[in-house]
């Protein structure tokens, strides 16, 4: 099972529709400070159902919608779609690939889609049960976590161990 494509439209600095095709091995993402690399990571967390705004560097969920610049107006919706290849039949075997999408409007209304059909977040969570993917699954390693695990201020280490148990 691997990620084949991530599509972003109106998500943070990705005002225009953008498609990132991942290699099944190692894909590097490079570029200057502030160009949008970590925003791609936020998009991945978000489409997999992340609800904690602190994990998305935002104080409110609507902050992930492209909020405009001096030369382009803010957008009304953010949409991210992730396509996963089911090459090892880990997901139900009728799927060769699965596309999950999440949309958020400025009003606060939001939608989840599974292969283009509107569904509930619950359906996506159930589909990825026991695959190691989905909200709360441990798939991102960043320097902030390095510092937290070393300083262990809030017994972070123990908490990480318990989440893995």
């Amino acid at each position, binding site marked *: 099972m691997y990620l084949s494509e991530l599509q972003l439209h109106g998500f943070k600095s990705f005002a225009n529709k953008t498609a990132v095709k991942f290699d099944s091995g190692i894909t590097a993402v*490079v570029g200057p400070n502030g160009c949008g690399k970590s925003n791609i990571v936020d998009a991945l967390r978000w489409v997999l159902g992340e609800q904690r705004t602190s994990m998305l560097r935002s104080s409110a969920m609507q902050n992930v919608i492209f909020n405009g610049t001096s030369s382009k107006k803010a957008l009304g919706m953010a949409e991210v779609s992730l396509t996963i290849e089911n090459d090892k039949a880990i997901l139900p075997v009728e799927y060769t690939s699965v596309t999950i999408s999440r949309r958020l409007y400025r009003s606060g209304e939001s939608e989840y889609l599974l292969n283009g059909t509107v569904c509930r977040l619950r359906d996506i969570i159930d589909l990825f049960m026991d695959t190691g993917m989905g909200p709360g699954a441990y798939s991102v390693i960043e320097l902030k976590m390095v510092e937290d695990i070393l300083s262990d201020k809030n017994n972070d280490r123990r908490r990480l161990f318990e989440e893995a148990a």
Partner: protein
Amino acid sequence: AHQRFSSTFNEIRENFKKVFSMLFREDDFCDLILEEHPDDPLNHKVEIIAKPRGKRPTNIEQLSGGEKTLTAIALLFAIYLVKPSPFCILDEVDAPLDDANVGRFANLIKEFSKNTQFIVITHNKKTMDYCEVLYGVTMQETGISKLVGVKLDTAENLVS
């Protein structure tokens, strides 16, 4: 529950020793210790022991920035391996590492990429050398991100 925590702890400890030895050298020692508090059995802390190459740091605080980062990466991987996701994203964790350690870190990723898909965000040219596919993100138009597929020599222009 305590049983399950114990077995998970042991599994993480095994993984930690294995990953640590891939990132450090053969004569480097590491361990994880569960400090049991007889009066507070639900609240023991996990202690990290890491002693690179003949050094005798009294605790990990004495280690250098790069040594601590490498040790933490080994532990985070060790935890990850208990319930591995099909993919793993690394966001600029190589920033505090010198060239030799970047090489060891990249070799580790290469080794694990047989079973795990990696997405690596980096400013480090040496790390980029180990990746099959390179994407550049630019912001030509103020505040708007744009993606470009990139070959390695172009990447070196892209990161400035």
